Every structure is written in C-alpha cells, then in structure tokens.
C-alpha cells in the first residue's frame, strides 16, 4: 500500500469538494438564504485542510491495483461524509445517519430519500442534494484526473475502479484526455437538457437541479409532487434525456467521429430494444388507468426510462399499477443501464456476455471438445472478463441476500424489503410498497440504513472496491 499517495489523493479530493461546495453557496447568495454560510465555511475548511495535506508530496507516486481500489472506496466514503455535514449543521436533517444516507444517495446517484417532503428545505440545500448527483454521475476521481495531471499510467487503476461496466476502455490513448472528453460530453448534454427544460415552464433553479439529477441518473426532485407536477413537454424532455444518459458514453464519442456503425454496438441495440419492448408492454398493461392512449404511453415511457436508467424519477405512483407492469419494472431495475454510462444496475453488457457464455456452455456440453470463445461486436471477450462477471453476479446476490436478512429485522413486508434493496444496490431510488414513489426510507432502523448506505456505495462502485476495502486480504502485509 502506498499510504502517502492515498492520503495525497484524498487531500486533492477535499480541495475539489470544497470548490464544488461553492455551487450551493452561490445559490444561497442568489436567494439570500442565511444557511449558505454553512457551505462557505465548509468549503473554506475543506480547501484549507486539502492544501495542508497536499503540501506533503509523496516520494513514490506509483499506484498499484490495490491502491486504486482503496483510494476509490475511501474517496467516496469521505466525500459522502463531508457532503452530509451541511444537512446536519443546518438542522435540515438532524440525525447524522439520515444525513449520510441522503448524501450517499446523492453521490451514488440513487435518489432514495429519507425526507417525506422537500419544499420546506432552503434552496441551497436542495441545490446541493441535486448537484451531488451530477458530481457522482461521472465520478469525482475521473473529474480529478481530467483537471489534474496525476502521475504516470497507474491512474488507469483509479479509472477502472470508478467507472461502471465490466471492462473499461479508453477513448483516446491518454487517461487524462479520456476523462476530459467524458466530462465535456457529460457537460454539453446536461446543458442541452437545462436549456430545453428552461424553454418549458420551469424556472432556472428547477431546470438546473432537474438537469443535474437526470444527467447523473440520480432522481432527487425539488418539489413534493416529483416530476408529476410538470407539463407533458417537460416530462418528455426528461424521458428522452434519462434514456440518453444511460447509453455508453463511448457511443457519443464514436458518433462525434462519424463512426455510426461502431456507435450502435450490440449493447446499445440490446438496450434500445429492451426499452422499446417494455414501454410497449407496460403501455398496453396500464392503458385502462388513463384517459388516452397517449397519456398511457407517456407515463409508461417515463417510468421505464426512469427505472432502467436507474434515475428513479416518478410521474405516477407505479405502486398502484397491475402486477405484470410492476414485475417488469422490478426486472428492469436489475438489468440497469449500459456499461460506461452514468447509470447503475448490473448493466446490459454483463447480461449479454453472460448470455453468450451460457450458450457456449450448452454447446460444449453437446460437443465436449468444441473450441469456442465469447465474442461481442467482433471482439473476443477474454476468459478473465467472463470469470470476473460470474464472480460479480455471485457477489451481487450475496450482498443482496445479506442486506435482505438485515432489513427483515425491521418487520416490514417482503416486497418493501426486496425492492428496497433492489432500489439502493442498483442506485435507482424508489422501490415498491413502503419505499414506493410516494414513500421514503425514513422508517428503517439505523442498522438497516447503514446496510443500505453500504449497498448504495457498493452498487455505484461496481461492488469490488467496497468489498475489498473491508476484506482482510487487502490489508495483509
């Protein structure tokens, strides 16, 4: 372990978070809210502490795989703890564990809340809540890589540990340029959504917060009515962008380079087919609940886009929909977004690779000596990647089962517990029944909340970093 370098990166992280805290501070200045001082003070403290820490330059700057995992998971925990402070200090969320839940939910782009109503909160707090989605969506370490020249090639380990998806590919030879390009695409798309929402009935504050929450596929709304209170136009804009932000960002890079054939990879096609099929089925299934077919399609598309992209916005209480629709929606939560997007879930790519390797297993059973490799888009998938995904799926369900067991101590019904874990481990937000679109997570015990906090972080960081942080194997000398 390179402890000094780990501390150094954490120091940089504090400076960056301090700088990002200026966004809610500015909001407070605009709306003349006294609680803005908390953000100013916290930002100053973080920047100062960060500068002191980074003054001590480590001699060895090389990072290995182990350091990468530890740095990423520690960064996210530290970032969430600092992010929770404004809620506690201002008294908006007095309990620390609740504030941490809200903060983790923000950074991991989950959007699960312990608040029953949000309109009484100062605007700067709402801004911070939504802005954490934007920071967490693309990853804060990727952001640091984009703006700061970290040493050598070893920071690829950081990127690998923070980016969603089974295999991380660079867009261009350098990590730094890759990170920068990702952020440019991310920023431009967020800006486009902001402008389109502004063209509707929203004011600048609403348009900005909603755009941030969509971009990170988060799901915190700023009104008690959620997205249901906005016009059909706004809902359609949000639907389209939710679906777009769950697409692998490499595709946008390829489209910019006019490589359309490569851009529509197997994963993207599979993703779009799933979206289209489920929207159709759900629309038919819920047709009788709405006055017109158009309305049914609109709500079906919004909900499918919201849950598959792991955003978790809601226009309608889908808890009241027929069982077929609810089942489909819960299954979508497992599938999740595309690899390399800002969305959560197991990811379409993993299912594609698993499906293909499963078919290969069948063939090998019939022809025991047959040689066959898993291929995706003409590229061979290394056996290590397949092996890694198998272990991932097992780990996923292990975490799932343990979380369910702990939650069941609280005495809620099976659906609540089942979907509560689905919605946090996949970074979605709302589940069904008590944690449905109209409910919230406040009712759980502190122990259950801690487990869900762990689930959100584990889900965002693709399980391994969080598990490795707490594994004795990592800390063995």
């Amino acid at each position, binding site marked *: 372990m390179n402890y000094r370098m780990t501390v150094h990166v954490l120091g940089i992280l504090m400076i960056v978070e301090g700088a990002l805290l200026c966004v809610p501070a500015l909001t407070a200045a605009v709306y003349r809210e006294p609680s803005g001082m908390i953000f100013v003070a916290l930002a100053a403290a973080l920047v100062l502490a960060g500068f002191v820490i980074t003054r001590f330059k480590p001699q060895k700057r090389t990072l290995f795989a182990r350091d990468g995992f530890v740095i990423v998971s520690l960064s996210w925990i530290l970032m969430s703890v600092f992010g929770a402070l404004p809620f506690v200090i201002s008294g908006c969320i007095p309990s620390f564990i609740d504030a941490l839940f809200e903060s983790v939910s923000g950074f991991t782009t989950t959007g699960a809340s312990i608040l029953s109503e949000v309109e009484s909160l100062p605007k700067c707090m709402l801004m911070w809540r939504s802005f954490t989605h934007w920071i967490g969506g693309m990853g804060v370490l990727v952001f640091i890589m984009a703006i700061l020249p970290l040493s050598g*090639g*070893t920071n690829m380990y950081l990127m690998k540990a923070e980016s969603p998806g089974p295999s991380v590919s660079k867009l261009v*030879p*350098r990590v730094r340029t890759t990170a920068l390009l990702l952020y440019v695409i991310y920023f431009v798309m967020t800006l486009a959504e902001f402008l389109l929402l502004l063209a509707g009935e929203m004011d600048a504050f609403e348009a900005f917060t909603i755009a941030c929450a969509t971009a990170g596929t988060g799901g915190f709304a700023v009104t008690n009515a959620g997205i249901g209170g906005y016009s059909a136009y706004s809902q359609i804009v949000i639907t389209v962008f939710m679906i777009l932000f769950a697409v692998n960002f490499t595709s946008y890079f390829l489209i910019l380079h006019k490589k359309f054939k490569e851009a529509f990879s197997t994963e993207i096609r599979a993703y779009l087919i799933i979206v289209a099929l489920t929207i159709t089925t759900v629309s038919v299934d819920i047709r009788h609940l709405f006055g017109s077919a158009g309305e049914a399609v609109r709500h079906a598309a919004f909900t499918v886009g919201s849950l598959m992209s792991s955003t978790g916005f809601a226009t309608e209480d889908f808890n009241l929909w027929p069982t077929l629709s609810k089942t489909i929606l819960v299954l979508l939560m497992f599938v999740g977004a595309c690899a390399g997007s800002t969305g959560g879930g197991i990811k379409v790519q993993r299912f594609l690779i698993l499906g293909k390797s499963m078919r290969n297993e069948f063939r090998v059973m019939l022809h025991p000596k047959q040689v066959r490799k898993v291929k995706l888009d003409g590229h061979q998938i290394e056996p290590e990647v397949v092996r890694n995904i198998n272990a991932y799926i097992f780990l996923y369900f292990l975490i799932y089962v343990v979380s369910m067991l702990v939650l069941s101590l609280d005495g809620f019904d099976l659906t609540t517990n089942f979907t509560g874990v689905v919605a946090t481990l996949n970074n979605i937000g709302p589940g069904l029944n008590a944690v449905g679109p109209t409910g919230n997570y406040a009712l759980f015990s502190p122990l259950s909340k801690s487990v869900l906090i762990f689930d959100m972080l584990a889900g965002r960081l693709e399980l391994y970093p969080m598990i490795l942080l707490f594994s004795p194997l990592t800390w063995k000398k």
Partner: protein
Amino acid sequence: MNIIIVGCGKVGKTLAEQLNEAGNNITVIDQDPDKLSAVTDRCDVMGIVGNGVTRAVLEEAGIADANLLIAVTGSDERNLLCCLLAKKAGQRCETIARVRSPQYSEDAPYLRRELGLAMVINPEYAAALEIARVLRFPSAIKIDTFVKGRIELLKFKLPEDSPLAGMAVRDIAPKLHCDVLVCTVERDDEAFIASGDFTFRGRDVISIIAEPKSAYTFFRKINYKASPVHSALIAGGGEIGHYLSIMLLRAGIDVTLIEKDEVRAEMLSEEMPDATVIHADATDQDILMQESIDKAGAFVALTNIDEENILLSLFARSVSRAKLVTKINRIDFDNVIGRLDLDTVIYPKNITAEIIVRYVRAMKNTIGSNVETLYQLIKGKVEAAEFLVREGSPVIGRPLAELDFREGVLVAAIVRGRKVIRPRGSDVIQDGDSVVIVSNHLGLHDITDVLR
C-alpha cells in the same frame, strides 16, 4: 504527437514507456492481449488487440491522425508491409521499420528511399556499433558523440585508488592541465550534476564532455589506458557478434569468435576468413583459457542468455584484465547489475529505443532552435541534448552569466564552426551555434526550455 507502435515485444515496450513519458499519445497494437496489458497497466497508453498489418486494425488505432508509426514486430517482412500500409492509410504518417536480417539490412538505404520510410533500424547493428565504439576507447563504459563527432561524451568508473579521488571538480583544469568538463557523477543510486566544489570518490561513475584529443590526454593523466584494444574474444556468434567482428576486423583488431552451433560457425568462418572462429560452448572454462582469455584486450559476452553473459564476464574479470562488454537483452535489474564489476553493459533494446526517441524528438522541431542529438546520460534522470540555435532565439547575444537558467542545467559546450568552446560565464551564444546542454529536466524540446 500521435504515435502507433506495432509489436509489443522488448523494444515496443521500452518505446511505449519512453515516448509516453515524453508526452506523446501512444497506441500499441499486438496480437497477444497478455503482452499488451503488461504495457497498458504500467503506462498511460492505449492497447489494441489485433494484427497490425490489417487496415481495419490500423484504422481502429487511428492511423488517419497518426504522425508516426513504428513497426517492431518479430518479422521484418511484416514490419515493412505494415509501414507500407500505414503510408497509404495515413495522410501524414511517417514510418519507422525494424529490419534485423542481414540480407535486408544491406538494402536498408534502398528500402528506405524506395518505400518512403523515415528510418530503417537494425538493433543488432546499432548495438554492434556501440560496442565497437567503446572498444576503441576501452577506459570508457559508454561513448556518445555530438556535433558530428567533434565532441565526445564519455562515461567511466573511477577505481578505488584513482588520482581523481578526493579531488574537487574545479581543481581538474589547474592540476591536470586538460580541458574536460565533468557533467554528472553517479554514486550508489544517486545522480548529481557536478558543480565546482563537488569532490570525487573512488567507485564514482563520471561522465565527461571533451574533444577527442583532450579526452585522450585526460585519461593518460589519470592513469587509464587510452589506446584501443588489440584483440577481442567474443562469446556468441549471433547477429551482433557477426556485425561486431566485421567492424573490429576492419579496424585491424584480432577477433576470436566462439560459436556453439556448427553450421553457424562454418558460415561465420566463410564470411570472415580473417577471424578465428571456434566451434565450442563459450561456458566451457577450458575453451576460454585455451583461447587465452587472460591475455585478451577485450572480452565481449554476446550469448543469447543474459545470466550466462553476466557469469562469463564475471569469470573473465577474475582471470584477466580485459575490457568487458556484457549484453543484456531481457532482464530488468539495472540497479543490481550496475553494482557488479562489469565495465560496459549493453542493452540492445535501449539502444534501439534511444535512437527512435531521438528521431521523434527531432520530428517535433520548433522554429528558432531544435534538438539535434539526444542521449540519456543516466537512465530516466539526466539527459544530454544538442541544440542548433537559430536567429531570433532569446539565448542569443547575452553572456551566459546573465541568462536565467533553471536549476540542474549545465551548458556543456558551444560549437562554432570548427571551434569548440568550453563555456564560461562571459561567453555569448551566437546564431548558428551548436550548444550541448546537460540537464535533469527530461524532454526538453527547445533551448529556451532551460531558461526559468
């Protein structure tokens, strides 16, 4: 610059590391994913699995925007074909091919011209050339030349009882009456750029810059033998041994060559009737003694096994006072090897990489002044670069003492026409001068980079 490297072997890997550090965008192509990930895990480069001699893979690697393609796969034919393809697919892509077979190498200038390649490099020939240069001046571990051979950069190790031990750098000129400039001193794992009050110790490794004549007197004064060797015993008749023998024979040095393979030995003997070719295993001590290793002027270990080469040289050290040259191909334990008493160690992959890196640096020339030649004085720590200063450069017309140099920069020599100037504070750089700079800032592109 955007650079594509095809082939991820020893040279490909070294090139990727060094060119990446110099701030280029590197894409590496190889068919073996394991070899690729060994590079992509260690440095910030992109790896593409595939056959670099196909258009699809080259396009995926971004040949359209590439400035340079370096083909260093195991096969000469593939390297050449790859360069041809790249030439057609990329609009402004220069190409470098590694061609190692002697038959093709004879055609190297022709191939280069007719196929439009920027460079054809033969690692074995380059290594042999470097060995031959060291044997010409056996006291040095390494010799590099600047300004078309007018200035030499020599690296040598002080013996325990050297007259230089205990002497300060500034005392050399008054005490020894010769005109050399001490650039760097390596002691244990540290490297220093020598200042005036630096005091030498035994076992220091020193680099000096001097004209060949002054270097000769300097070595005489500090009790080194400065004359070329008269006979050389070479273990291993591979390509390097073959090229080296030809070069040494041409310089009038007696060559005894030991080769294990009978067919190969016969071929070598036919090609070089003046050399004594022995068909035997060089690890046999009797054979070495029989071929009077104890009296040889130089012993060069060039077998295919690195460990064997090290052992052979250590044995030679114990029985003779010959100048030792050891070839290391694969193993990467610089600091351990550096502590052994081995005189000169040759790393063919580094020599090839260094030549290509030098070419890349020259490709990036800027107006005003540019890098003509570049050597890594101490691997990854200190470089020596030759700049050609052109009109308009801010270093022109002011005495050196008035220029605000960065720390760790040494102006080692100024060459004006035929004259070599040992720079002093009052000297002034003029338009058209060649200036040699020694610096621990790596990757200098322009002489103005040395100013604060």
